[in-house]
């Protein structure tokens, strides 16, 4: 069970949080202009990385805020946490 440093509340046990999958998949601004393939890409296709992954987490049983996390999925090490809307670090 991880310890997650919520950017709004500080360190809390993982069980207070919900994972929200891959981060930085922006909802298309004009969905109707997309082909079925492009829409499927947005809707279902995921990188599902083994290694350093950018993902979304929600402090569901706390402040209910969403934020971003950089985590190594091969060993669950959390590298970085940053707020929604902030740009992802280049590395």
């Amino acid at each position: 069970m991880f310890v997650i440093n919520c950017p709004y509340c500080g360190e809390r046990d993982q069980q207070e949080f919900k994972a929200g999958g891959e981060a930085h998949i922006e909802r298309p601004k004009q969905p109707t202009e997309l082909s079925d393939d492009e829409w499927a890409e947005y809707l279902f296709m995921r990188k599902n990385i083994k290694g350093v992954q950018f993902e979304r987490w929600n402090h569901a049983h706390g402040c209910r805020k969403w934020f971003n996390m950089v985590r190594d999925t091969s060993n669950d090490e959390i590298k970085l946490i940053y707020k929604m809307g902030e740009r992802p670090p280049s590395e």
Partner: protein
Amino acid sequence: MSANLRVKSSEFIDETVRISFKFNGKTYYGFKGDTLASALLANDIHLVGRSFKYHRPRGIMTAGSEEPNAIVQVNDKTNRTEPNVRATEVEIYEGLEASSQNCWPSVNFDIGGINNAISAFLPAGFYYKTFMWPASFWEKYEYFIRHSAGLGKSPTEKDPDIYDHRNIHCDVLVVGAGISGILAAKNAAKNNFKTLLVDEKNELGGATIYQNREFNKIDNQSSSDWIKKEIQELSNIKNLEIKTRTSVAAYHGYNYLLARENLTDHLEKKDKQDKIRQRLLKIRAKKVILATGALERPLIFNNNDRPGIMLSSAVKKYADFYGVVSGKKNIFFTNNDSAYESALCLHNKGIQVEAIIDIREKSDSNIVKAVKKAGITIHWSHTIVDTKGYKKLNSISVMKLSNDGLSVIGNKINISCDCLGVAGGWTPAVHLFTQSGGKLTFDENDKVFLPNKYPSDQLCVGSCNGDFKIKEIINNLSINLKKFLNIEKTDFDNLSVDSEKENSKRNIWLLPSNKPIGKTKPFVDYQNDATAKDIKLALREGFRSIEHVKRYTTTGMGTDQGKLGNMHALGIIADTAGVKMGDLGTTTFRPPYTPLTFGTIVGRNVGEYFDTFRRTPMNDWHIENKAEFENVGQWKRAWYYPINGETMHESVQRESIAARESVGILDASTLGKIDIQGSDASEFLNRVYTNAWSKLGIGKCRYGLMLNEDGMVYDDGVTTRLGENHYLMTTTTGGAANVLGKLEDYLQTEWPELDVYLTSVTDHYATASICGPNSKKILNKIIPDLDLSEENFPHMSFKNAQIENIKCRIMRISFTGEHSYEINVQANFGKAIWEKCMEAGKEFNITPYGTETMHLLRAEKGFIIVGQDTDGTMTPIDLQMDWIVSKKKYDFIGKRSLYRSDTMKEERKQLVGLLTDDPSIVLEEGAQIVSELNQSPVNMLGHVTSSYYSPNLKKSIALAVVRNGKNMMGKKLFIPMEDKTINVTVANPVFFDSKNKRINA
């Protein structure tokens, strides 16, 4: 058999407190401080149980939690019975009853022992190769296999004990209170680290506390005297919490550890009552120090499993700590000096030591010299080739080892004995370290796996880190602890320590015999009866990975999880396959370290605390009025209100008629309610619902349908515009939390530019819904000054009002098709408002109705219930609710998905009504629908989602989803049930008042 083998009074045993206990029905005595194992040994009982596969007699092998053999059923036939309990861990108490397992009719005469005689036909994996003929017979074979497998018996009654959890956050957790753990904890606490020290035993001090080693001195005192003083000092240290009888079970990532604190297992029955039996400590430690020690390992030789064959360290502990001698004629068999300590300990107590068999060529350490001086015979370069004694060891056969250690030479010597102490060296207890993700390295010199790479902030100290002598333990601890805690000094930096160095080593994983290996039984896993030849067989058959060998032979899969034999298994694999042990690696150590009671893991989360029940403010009224309840999500909802012994059907018929003919009242408080505010609230609703919201006037209500992004119906409900920038959304009862979560997600991550705030107010309001032609009259009675005219208060609108001092929001909305009002009040007034309605409705025979009637009434109107008429595969178009999908809106959640090739198909399943040809037959919900009978394969068109007998229509009605159903109006279809076929006709799903006259009546 009442021999007393108590040799010497021990300070750890209180001989003034005699305790009686039963073993296999017979009464014995022990003393306070005894374990079941020590008490049995004191009564000269070695035969405790039978092994798993061959049912061989087995005795007490160890003095700790690694015990593979001496496992018993405790308190059989009581509600506190427990299988597979290690006799070495049970502290005896008055009234304890223990019995042997896995034997029938008794441990002395066990029919299953026949397996030993036919063991030649039962090699590793034999069951994969047979029991295949005839094909249908496996379950019959399996019946017998199952009954001869298993060990103890599961309890069959409810557990009378309670369990608990505790969260602990500390700076430093020290696991193991042997010498290194005590010193580490003491110095951590003294340096202001909030420290927790835990040990699985009931005494601190580990082995040091009772061992008086001849050549170990600390500060010029015996090590046991010195550690006692250290322990005494602990009680005066701030910041230090100590927990004994506390075994760390699991070491997870982020320094999260689980420990079981045992509180009452050592108490007699009357003292267990109403106390917490075990507590699960959930420990989050900033730093962890593992001082888990080392386990002595046995030696692998022919027939090395007989009762009377024990670990050398166990023989010593029973003598030193419990004052019990395990045999009258003792022999030790060793590959290192530690057996000499045990031998000398017995000798000094006046107990006969026949001989020491040592596979080494020589050793000239002081302890060996002392043993020689005591006149004990030492057989250098010898090995045991066989042992005798079916239920108790009575002799061993010894031969000289060849120089390469692969064979034996010379003549066989037989020596009689009744106890053999075996010393195969020490295995660091790195289980927790590896559980945490730590990586090991193999030390060729000591033949041990040692901690190498730490995955988190932790440190291994003492013998679990490969330091086996007191001098190196203390020296290395001093250096490593200072670095780990970043402290200047410890209070044992300059301690004078004397201990011996071992200088002679010889390790042979599988000792040779004079017989071919095929005729021998060198056990590697005692409990599961896996032998060295099983391991070799597995390798011969092509199993190369250690995980394969483990699984094929079941080595290491017993209740001891291979604590004794795993190293030998690895060694034998490495030797046989010609690979280095370091390259071979180990099998994965899995939690828990020792088996962990389910009840402890669960703690208080049982019975009524298993999951929350949510109850409405009117709940007490429903109970007083004998409602039956239905569980919906976490809610308890009134299902129907039987009177005078009505069946559910009778109640529902009565309630339904009342609601249509006069007035009914429903507790609708469980519906999810979300308060939405902000200048972009309207735009937000536009994006989350399929229909348009911008033009909804203040004070008006609108039904909305919410989709998933994949276009499927997700939730529905009525939303009311309370003000310019203020809405109140309702959701389904079960979906409330998910809807809020989803809306927050979009708001925070996709549309942060919107000025919208969401607040869950489900619990803040109570809702009474009055419905039926007389509902208006009731409302008029309780709020006479509210204008209920159609002009002022039309359908789908809302008013603020006040009933006496209670402020309320009244929505004129309807889920039944009747003229109805939902009265929302602050939750504390829920029951008051309900009772007021009941009072005012008396003259109209107001009838409370439950969810079942609500379902029926809405089905008469063809209104859907999300989750019952939909299942995550229905679009609004499928529901024939095209009218609610805005064509004008540019986008809303799920819109794009409605235009995919499959979702646009005509012949999807669509919601329709069904009428049975025989109006008295009520269809079964879930029944499947076909258009043709006797097809193969059967082409199922859909299923019945909702079905009722409508008393208002005097016929059975149903909603169903049917492939291409919207083009089948009036078509005859069939419901093939198990015993009959029901004929139905596709109909409009609005069965009642299709012109919606009643709503506005």
